[in-house]
């Protein structure tokens, strides 16, 4: 299906958010996630099914003021 990951359109075979993180190599990475502007807590990623057109954000700690 087609999704938008961090602002970039791409194809994925993953059917859940957790599977997408595995596919991207973020299985054990310190990341937080949102789908369609809604926060998805880490414990909910396994159960969170992806749909065509979903907009997914994967974020990490960064410098800030």
């Amino acid at each position, binding site marked *: 299906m087609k999704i938008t990951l*961090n*602002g970039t359109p791409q194809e994925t075979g993953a059917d859940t958010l957790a599977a997408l993180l595995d596919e991207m*190599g*973020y299985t054990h*990475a*310190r*990341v*937080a*996630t*949102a789908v369609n*502007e*809604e*926060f998805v*807590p*880490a414990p909910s990623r396994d159960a969170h099914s992806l749909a065509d057109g979903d907009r997914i*954000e*994967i*974020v*990490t*700690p*960064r*410098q*800030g*003021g």
Partner: protein
Amino acid sequence: MPTYYDTEVASRLMLGTAQYPSPAILAEAFRRSGAGIATVSVRRESGGERAGQAFWDLIRDLGVHVLPNTAGCHSVREAVTTAQMARELFGTDWIKLEVIGHADTLQPDPFGLVEAARILTDEGFKVFPYCTEDLVICEKLVEAGCQVLMPWGAPIGTGLGLNNIYGLRTLRAHFPDLPLVIDAGLGVPSQAAHAMELGYDAVLLNTAVAKAGDPAAMAEGFARALEAGRMGFEADPMMPRDMAAPSTPVLGQAFS
């Protein structure tokens, strides 16, 4: 020392973590200034570079409190979702809430700020709102549950100092017991000393330190200015007057 939501912090300096020449200089700035709180952000993971993990390791080694921000958010929804992601990433319910209303001045959107503060407080966040010195908006933020206010001195990154002394004094007078932090706009240590002399509890810096020629020395300079300004405030300064008043005794002067 200031207490934020029942947590006492042994420094009046909050320091940003962006724009330093290197991670080592960032760490040195924290060490020399004794800053007690580091502000951080959440940003998109890009490629497989794992920059986020390396940065997180650096911050943890500083041994300071971490205050995540919602920098760059222009809507309530963006800010709330960013705060939720930050809480999970950094393991803290502290959030420096920014809802930006204008691209040129990076001035807060007061309506969105109050709405987001209310939502986040209801979700158990401890909100540190980046606001203006507007007394009415600050009252609304306190009603929304904020137990600290962080008015700007001047727009972010300008180094213009305290642009509205009257407004900042009014805010201090109106909220005598609430922690007040000057967030944004400071450029040199004298401005931080002035904030302390007004009775403010702390300042938040980033650009002034990170973009100085010697960031670690500037950070220490600010720390000393904070100490000096606070000491002056606590020492109950004299009242200014318009006419001269001789300090040397007049009585006993020769030729009089």
